[in-house]
């Protein structure tokens, strides 16, 4: 990344039509357009202008219910290993165990301010569904979650968590039964019940205003990172590292440094561009990069690194697709990164040279999962393990802030099984405990 390109990319507010350069936009069926326009209007009034004290209310609730601010922890043993200071932004300590609540709480609260009476949401691994179900229980809103059949079968505990919070969980049987089918089906529900229902989309994807609005709710992460860096490090970090699937924790960790965060009530100066901070988006390299065109399958989820421009789920962005434009099945050992698209703002920031896309493969992520658990006493989500893994390749002098977007309790079955099957370095032996 050249110094010049960094300097020329300052605050990049999207236009009213929600374009980030050529990316973004509103590619949805007409039946949804009035709801999307109504939401864009509500976003501007409540989220950007703090009408009716909405943002004050949100900030208070995410503190008192969510447990913000999350700590910035100095990882002493990793710092010693790498020879530069490593700090961990602890979104794993947010209520629910992942950054997802920032957005879910923000949107469910917004839906209440808008007078909506029902919430629908998609979920892949179940983290966003769980966060939405929690927020709906807390704010007393009826909630229905769509989840692909494959994901329902492999993420039972999260299905039960959603049910325990009184949410309906609707399995989606079409296609491969994973995240993109769940998004399709939630959009169909929204198109049917658009008059009283709000769709809480789980990432910085979808039609405008979702990518901007989800970024802003998640921007509390980087807003705190800046304050905490100043207080604890006495300087801004050299680099911020975050994993990228759809990109909500990524944009949350980057937005304040990019200068695009627009959530009202931020501390003075915390939304000014900080062009000297390198921003690294770590994608799931899966088992190998590229798309198998003949099979319509990508053994990875690296849409920023390898994807091509196209239109999916309401936005123009970078996608894993065939040359003809059919969307392919992606892969990652981490269900939360397993998506063929990515947020349009990230696609734009990569083209502008402001964000550098990198990737680590399944094995490296599993190794990092065990390393952080062993060395620092923190079990990271497999998604976040990708960000942690990149430290092995990082060549700067630090300090580096890694966004630990969630905790890994949900991944234990996968990790034990996959670590044994792949003979992952540093994984503990579990054989003696098996019946």
């Amino acid at each position, binding site marked *: 990344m050249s110094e010049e390109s960094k300097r020329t990319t300052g605050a990049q507010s999207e236009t009213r*039509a929600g374009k980030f350069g050529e990316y973004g936009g*509103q590619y*949805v069926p*007409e*039946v949804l357009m009035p709801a999307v326009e109504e939401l864009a209007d509500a976003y501007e009034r409540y989220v950007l202008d703090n009408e009716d004290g909405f943002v004050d209310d949100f900030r208070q609730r995410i503190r008192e219910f969510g447990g913000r601010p999350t700590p910035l922890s100095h990882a002493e043993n990793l710092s010693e290993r790498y020879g530069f200071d490593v700090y961990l932004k602890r979104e794993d300590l947010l209520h629910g165990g992942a950054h997802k609540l920032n957005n879910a709480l923000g949107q469910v609260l917004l839906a209440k301010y808008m007078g909506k009476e029902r919430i629908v949401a998609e979920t892949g691994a179940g983290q966003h569904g769980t966060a939405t179900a929690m927020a709906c229980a807390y704010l007393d809103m009826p909630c229905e979650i769509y989840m692909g059949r494959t994901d329902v079968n492999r993420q039972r505990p999260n299905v039960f968590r959603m049910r325990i919070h009184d949410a309906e969980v609707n399995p989606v049987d079409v*296609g491969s039964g994973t995240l993109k089918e769940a998004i399709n089906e939630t959009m169909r529900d929204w198109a049917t019940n*658009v008059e009283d229902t709000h769709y809480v989309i789980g990432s910085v994807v979808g039609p405008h205003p979702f990518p901007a609005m989800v970024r802003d709710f998640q921007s509390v992460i980087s807003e705190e990172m800046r304050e905490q860096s100043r207080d604890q490090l006495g300087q801004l970090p050299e680099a911020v590292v975050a994993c990228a699937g759809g990109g909500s924790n990524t944009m949350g960790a980057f937005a304040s440094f990019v200068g695009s965060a627009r959530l009202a009530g931020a501390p003075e100066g915390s939304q000014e561009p900080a062009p000297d901070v390198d921003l690294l988006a770590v994608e799931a390299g899966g088992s190998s990069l590229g798309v198998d065109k003949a099979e319509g399958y990508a053994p990875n989820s690296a849409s920023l690194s390898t994807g091509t421009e196209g*239109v999916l789920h309401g936005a123009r962005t970078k996608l894993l697709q065939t040359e003809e434009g059919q*969307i392919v099945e992606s892969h990652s050992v981490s269900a939360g990164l397993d998506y063929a698209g990515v947020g349009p703002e990230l696609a734009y920031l990569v083209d502008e040279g402001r964000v550098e896309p990198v990737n680590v493969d399944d094995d490296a992520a599993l190794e990092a999962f065990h390393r952080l658990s062993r060395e620092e006493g923190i079990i990271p989500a497999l998604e976040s393990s990708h960000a942690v893994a990149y430290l092995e390749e990082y060549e700067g002098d630090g300090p580096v802030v890694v966004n630990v977007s969630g905790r890994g309790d949900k991944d234990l079955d996968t990790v034990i099984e996959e670590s044994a099957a792949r003979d992952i370095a540093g994984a503990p032996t579990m054989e003696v405990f098996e019946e």
Partner: protein
Amino acid sequence: MTRSEIRAAFDDGPALVSYVAAGDPSADATKEYVEALVDGGTDVVELGLPFSEPVAEGTTIQNAIKRALEAGMTPEAYLDLVRDLDVDVPIVCMTYYNLIYQYGDEAGPEEFVAAAADAGISGFVVPDLPVNESEPMYEACREHGLDLIFIVAPTTTPERLESMLDRTTGFVYVQGRLGTTGARDEVSENTPEALERLQDANVPKAVGFGISSGEQAREVVASGADGVIVGSAYVDIIADGVENDLPTEEVADRLEALAAELKAGARKGLPEPERK
């Protein structure tokens, strides 16, 4: 602008617009099915080009698209099929924007619109391309003399309706109910209201989403529609054929019979003196 072929298809009384997904369950079968639908009285064929993420479709058409993709349907094969069709009614391509956008060497709609025009397509319906994102597609269609048909939803605001009508040629596609495509037993009670809003439009109005019988077609035309759009009811017949391994001719006969019933029903919706 010269009157389009699609618009002219509405000249002789209420028009029947019939949808099937190309390649469901094979390109050869689709050719026979389309010809049968035209023999049954179809005035405009709406031929779906299958996309992997059909967000506007209900289960019936989602499954049809899945069968077509599994059978190997591609944009090139689609254009070959269109060239191969032996029918004298206009053909509308119904697909999602990403396939149009990706076609050819340069990103953008220009190349696919040109290739479609060359193959004999007369217009497009693109459910995930609302009017505010339609500029490049609209320009490409204009350049090649094709109609870009917009869907007016029950939720469409007056401002949006106006900007759609400014760009609409061919006909306007009136979405009869909220939600996705799919056969229903009853006509939506919102239909007369939806048509009322469009009474000043200077293009024909065709109603879709949920129509499956001659009686429903009659009702919709009696409410003021200039045509009916039917898809899922045909696709149910095709799906039944696949499930029970029926011969293509038998499925084609059933499609022709349903088209004839719908067309007759639509005619009955006209006041007596206007019937032909």
